[in-house]
């Protein structure tokens, strides 16, 4: 017990510098979110009063509620879709030898290489040509496409560490490939799936440029558009509301982290060669 305690103290000490740096902008954000409009420009750390009502005020004026719902919809759906599309591909890459295997992997990387800022022009022409702008579902598909490369690479690397004989044992018991995937393979790949889920969810959650280009109407705006539009180029910025909004926007993600992080535990001793 005390060994663990000692280790814990040591680890926290080691982590503390980075934790401080990470928390710094959060601290700035939180404190600014609780300052009044007159005080928000002062760089003091302790405001004379904590204005909790900034949050409800921001909530009402910024239309953030609807954006929250839109963002949740887009992020959740594209997470699911990405994983559904990536798993078969990653499985094929890690379990089959086929012509073009390495090429496909590299192609996936290529799909990440165009700077999104440029990409968006071409993409928009494509979507506009199909008459599908202002649709959250189109956004879902685009996000999915963007995240495939990472997800496939990540899943494939992880899949390769899962011993084949586990699958083979399932086949021997008569389980189809599909069933094996569901019952044996994927449960063992949970950490990798968690990583990819977090990744896709967050990318969709935070994505701004594509959303702004593809979406038109208030009803479809996602959170980043709302939050960003509180700052971008306005003649007057209500920093306390901006910070409050940014804070609110990060809460669901933090909850997601809290929920998913424990699935990142070290494997069930699956890699052992015996």
């Amino acid at each position, binding site marked *: 017990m005390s060994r663990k305690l000692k280790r814990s103290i040591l680890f926290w000490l080691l982590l503390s510098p980075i934790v401080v740096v990470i928390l710094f902008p959060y601290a700035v954000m939180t404190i600014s979110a609780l300052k009044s409009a007159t005080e928000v420009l002062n760089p003091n750390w302790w405001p004379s009063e904590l204005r909790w009502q900034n949050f409800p005020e921001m909530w009402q004026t910024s239309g953030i509620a609807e954006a929250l719902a839109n963002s949740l919809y887009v992020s959740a759906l594209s997470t699911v879709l990405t994983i559904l599309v990536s798993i078969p591909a990653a499985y094929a890459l890690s379990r089959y030898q086929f012509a073009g295997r390495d090429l496909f992997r590299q192609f996936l990387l290529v799909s990440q290489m165009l700077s999104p800022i440029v990409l968006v022009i071409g993409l928009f022409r494509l979507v506009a040509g199909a008459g599908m702008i202002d649709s959250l579902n189109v956004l879902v598909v685009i996000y999915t496409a963007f995240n495939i490369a990472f997800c496939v690479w990540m899943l494939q690397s992880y899949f390769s560490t899962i*011993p084949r*004989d*586990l699958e*083979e*044992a*399932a*086949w*021997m*018991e*008569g*389980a*189809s*490939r599909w*069933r094996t995937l569901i*019952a*044996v393979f994927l*449960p*063992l790949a949970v950490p990798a799936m968690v990583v990819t889920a977090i990744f896709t969810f967050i990318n969709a959650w935070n994505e701004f440029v594509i959303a702004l280009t593809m979406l038109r109407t208030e009803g479809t705006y996602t959170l980043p558009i709302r939050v960003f539009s509180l700052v971008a180029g306005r003649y007057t910025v209500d920093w306390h509301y901006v910070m409050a909004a940014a804070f609110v926007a990060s809460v669901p993600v933090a909850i997601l982290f809290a929920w998913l992080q424990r699935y990142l535990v070290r*494997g*069930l*001793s*699956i890699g052992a*060669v*015996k």
Partner: protein
Amino acid sequence: MAGLRIKELVKSYGPMNVLHGVDLDVRDGEFLVLIGPSGCGKSTLLRMIAGLDDISSGELWIGDRLSNGLAPQQRNISMVFQSYALFPHMTTRKNIGFGPKIRREASGAIDAKVNKAAETLNLHAYLDRLPRQLSGGQRQRVAMGRTIVREPDLFLFDEPLSNLDAKLRVQMRTELKALHQQLKTTMVYVTHDQIEAMTMADRIVVMNGGRIEQSGTPLELYDRPVNKFVAGFLGSPAMNFIPGTLERGDGQPRMRTQEGFTIPVGDTAAKSGQEIEIGIRPEHYRLADNDEGFPYQVAVVEPTGSETHLFGTIAGIDARCVFRDRIAPEPGSQMMLTIDPAKVHVFDRKTGDRI
């Protein structure tokens, strides 16, 4: 239920052949034991039968179906993996019940099967443990349990009892025989345990370096090994080989060793003067009552409880003797031994084949 017919089966990894054209027929309902040195291709053969490894060339018939390209799921075979291959995220119960569950059996029926298997395997106390919370032998038993809850056309066992203690192993052996008796399913069983092989097999196949050396009933193999390899592989401690020249006189043919003394040999087709090598199983030596025997130079004495193992040399050749009695000769001393000529195996010194 199904027999198995294997023709010219070859397996290669890249340029390297692991199986060099194996031919094997397994009768429907037969209990076939596969033995051979580590790395000779036993597991590979099982995996090819199971459909887990591709067949490089040759034919594999399960029942009367050419099964070369058949997916493992379609073969209705059950297998215990040498590596266990337990599902790490499933409890013992789930692991054992996996097969029936896949076949969508009623959960009541599954439970009953699992409980019965757990009873047989002494696993009832561990049904809700995960594999990593089990001891080595317990894991191996779970692997066994996963197999025996099913009623496949063919059982494949890859050293399923290697991590069990002697007592449990005897018990499991009996259970398995009973299972075989009851289901009459063809079983192919890989083991390194001599007693297991001898007592369980309807037929034993001895492999070596990707080839089949001999196949036959246990006693056939024990009594008439076709070559030195089989003779030396079967039986533990292994047979002693002593080189010499055959001398046919009036009576019993005898072999003259380099050191000059002779050992009587039984029926053999070897010609007088032929360079031969005789094989004598350590347990077949007898203490000579008079001076008629041949000399044995004792080096080490090892009592095992029920037996006494001696290490020493005959005619300068390492030889081991096993005596049922607890004898205690001085290391360094010389003993006179005899042997029933009928129990002497004669091999051609060049080819190693029985003559």
